[in-house]
């Protein structure tokens, strides 16, 4: 019963919540409590998915498919596979975390904030569950709006500029994405992802290869900016440094990477293989580049922005290695990075709430004052570095080991990034928590991690450990979907080579 409508429910419970938030009075913490309730409910609903997921199948599950608009033929088609399922759960999990992180940070305009925040939840979940390209594009673009407005409203000092920059950086490439989708529609007569995929794998050779190639590039370009893949990361550090924590947590990574896997690998496997060398190069450059710049950043928010560039490049690397293991690792790493990166941002945020600055140089010797916070910082840091038994290790190991198998030199270079990432992360810990107590720290007594913050961070820390130890539980479902994709890619490659052979 519930299986037939669970995805709609997950997607639109936040929207319903947003509408209620708009009607609630602005008194006390009512809006916060209500939003927390909505996000918790959403999270609870997302847990239905792994509980009722049929393992060992590579297709989509929990599908809902209704006609929506007759012509152009657009359907309301939802469904998840092993890849998107965990991403949906992830969004659900991060929701309450974000609300708790914003509890004190957002004190004015709470109604606007939580209204837009809940809309953002709908948009992100929608991106993962939509199987109709029109619907997908709808959620994809919708995810820009709350983000941009919230950055403009709650930016630290140059919010409006950062918001516009963010919006344009994603919106203009999306125009190409739309051209690509419309082109596909003109050829296939449908926006449905599954039907398009079938059409392309059966009749793809009838379409002009040149045109398909451009279309796949249009898709990739739009997604790569959103990830962001080096050198398209120009927007990220501004957004990170301006956006409120709850928004910075979700702005990068998963949407773009998921879309690359879903659309570029799913629809254009042969083209993706051809472009893989370029993407691997960019990924490895991104890993090193992000790490090296993070090494010299003083501002904590910009620091985490560049570390994000580096860490997400690992995922890109894994995707374009074209191995089952690498792809498993990439999906896993998306989950890991979103979780640990979010925790890190919250931690930076609560430090900022106490001391009012993100400047690393002003801190020092916090460990003596805030032992609990130091513990949480260290766990999160170690998870981001990829210490074994924590989550980051599993993903990075799978990605790196598969990249060694395919491109030993690039793999070696990427591994350097792991070392650099340990260097800057631990350097950050050292500057913040050890050494002499700085003037700021010495003169301003502040409370240690409070219960509310603990509710946000401790589950995350526990999850980091569980993800690090019990990885097969997650990878099981991911692997199902990845194997399906792998067959698709192999099929396309075989078709391509036979076509080339026939032409000769």
């Amino acid at each position, binding site marked *: 019963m519930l299986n037939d409508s669970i995805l709609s429910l997950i997607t639109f419970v936040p929207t319903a919540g947003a509408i209620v938030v708009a009607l609630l009075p602005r008194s006390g913490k009512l809006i916060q409590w209500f939003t927390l309730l909505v996000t918790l409910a959403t999270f609870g609903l997302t847990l239905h998915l792994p509980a009722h997921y049929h393992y060992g199948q590579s297709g989509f599950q929990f599908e809902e498919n209704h006609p929506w608009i007759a012509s152009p033929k657009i359907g309301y088609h939802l469904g998840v596979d092993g890849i998107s399922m965990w991403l949906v759960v992830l969004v659900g999990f991060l929701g309450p975390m974000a609300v708790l992180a914003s509890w004190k940070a957002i004190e004015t305009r709470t109604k606007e904030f939580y209204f837009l925040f809940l809309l953002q939840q709908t948009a992100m979940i929608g991106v993962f569950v939509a199987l109709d390209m029109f619907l997908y594009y709808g959620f994809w673009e919708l995810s820009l709006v709350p983000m941009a407005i919230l950055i403009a409203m709650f930016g630290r000092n140059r919010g409006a500029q950062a918001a516009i*920059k963010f919006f344009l950086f994603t919106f203009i490439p999306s125009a190409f994405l739309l051209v690509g989708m419309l082109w596909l529609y003109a050829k296939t007569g449908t926006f449905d992802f599954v039907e398009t995929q079938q059409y392309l794998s059966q009749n793809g050779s009838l379409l002009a290869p040149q045109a398909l190639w451009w279309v796949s590039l249009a898709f990739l370009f739009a997604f790569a900016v959103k990830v962001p893949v080096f*050198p398209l990361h*120009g927007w990220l550090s501004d957004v990170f440094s301006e956006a409120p924590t709850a928004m910075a947590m979700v702005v990068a990574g998963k949407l773009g990477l998921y879309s690359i896997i879903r659309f570029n690998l799913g629809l254009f496997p042969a083209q993706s293989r051809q472009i893989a060398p370029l993407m691997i190069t960019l990924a490895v450059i991104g890993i090193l580049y992000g790490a*090296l*710049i993070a090494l010299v950043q003083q501002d904590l928010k910009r620091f985490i922005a560049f570390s994000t560039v580096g860490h997400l490049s690992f995922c890109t690397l894994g995707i374009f290695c074209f*191995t*089952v293991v690498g792809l498993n690792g990439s999906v896993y790493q998306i989950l890991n990075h979103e979780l640990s990166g979010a925790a890190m941002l919250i931690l930076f945020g609560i430090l900022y709430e106490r001391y009012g600055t993100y400047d690393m140089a002003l801190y020092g010797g916090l460990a003596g004052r805030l032992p609990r916070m130091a513990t949480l910082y260290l766990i999160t840091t170690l998870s981001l570095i990829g210490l074994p038994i924590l989550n980051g290790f599993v993903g990075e190991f799978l990605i790196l080991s598969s990249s060694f198998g395919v491109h030993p030199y690039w793999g070696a270079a990427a591994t350097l990034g792991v070392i650099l990432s340990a260097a800057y992360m631990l350097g950050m810990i050292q500057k913040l928590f050890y050494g002499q107590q700085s003037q700021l720290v010495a003169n301003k007594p502040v409370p240690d991690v409070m219960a509310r913050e603990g509710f946000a961070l401790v589950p995350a820390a526990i999850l980091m450990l569980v993800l690090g130890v019990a990885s097969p539980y997650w990878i099981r479902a991911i692997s199902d979907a990845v194997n399906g994709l792998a067959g698709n890619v192999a099929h396309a490659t075989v078709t391509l080579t036979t076509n080339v052979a026939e032409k000769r």
Partner: protein
Amino acid sequence: MGGLRKKIPVTFWTMTMAVFAISGFPPFAGFFSKDEILYQAFVSPNSLGKILWFVGLLTAGLTSFYMFRLWYLTFFGESRAPKAAHDDHGNGHAHGVHESPWIMLAPLAILAVLSVIGGWVGVPAALGGHSEIEHFLSPVMHAQYLSYEQVSVAMSTHPQVVAQFTNPPSEAAEGSKSLELLLAVVSVAVAAIGWFFAHLFYFAKPALPAQLAAKVRGLYALLLNKYWIDELYGAVIVTPILLVSRYVLKGLFDTGVITGGSLALGYATQGVGSVVQRIQSGNIRSYAGWLAIGAAALLLLTYFGFGAHLTF
């Protein structure tokens, strides 16, 4: 520190077990793992195996030496702590030496027991055991990474094909039991030598190290400063990386090319925009002129393009 044996007996005993285990004395845990590693290095078909075995052996001796040095200096002899700390001991526990609370002692005890008996799960065959964990990791070590093609072939044909990629290769050549025994004796002997020197320098004749250090001052300084490896790294690797990152990557590339590039694109577009805007002079004659030009252009296009496109 020094002479702490009586003051913190539990810590002393647990540490003792750890020291013996790390130094590799049988039957402590460290012995079995070290012994196995050295043996595998020795019998490895790789030509470097013997050298690595020797290096390992040497460092095993050094390990034993410095571990016992630590042990002697901490727990034996006279206390070298400043007098003030001792005076405090009488009236407050704040700075005096005292046993740790149970929450720290309990893990210590567990670890100490494990460091005594932990190695017994892997007693090699040469010593009459049957190494329980020798093949523990072999599934991991032999797992292959399937490429898309392989998976797809495997899925389309038969599960057995997958097995072809995942079967462990045949066992590597192994040495004899007597050799393993001999090597074990050697390594224990080396560890014992390490212990002996530690005993000599730091228990029997405490003045000896200073005399020795005075004799080979250069070597001592080199060791004391950890071969200056840290400084070397700092000068050759860390500083250049930081400089390049700060000025070339961050300053020049990220600010200049990445940020500057998008800004330049934005300004270029706006520049074209302001040219377009300039048409808006507010002057009605010029507007009429523009209208006329536009109309003329369209009419000319129609007139001259007409013949080419006539489709009756």
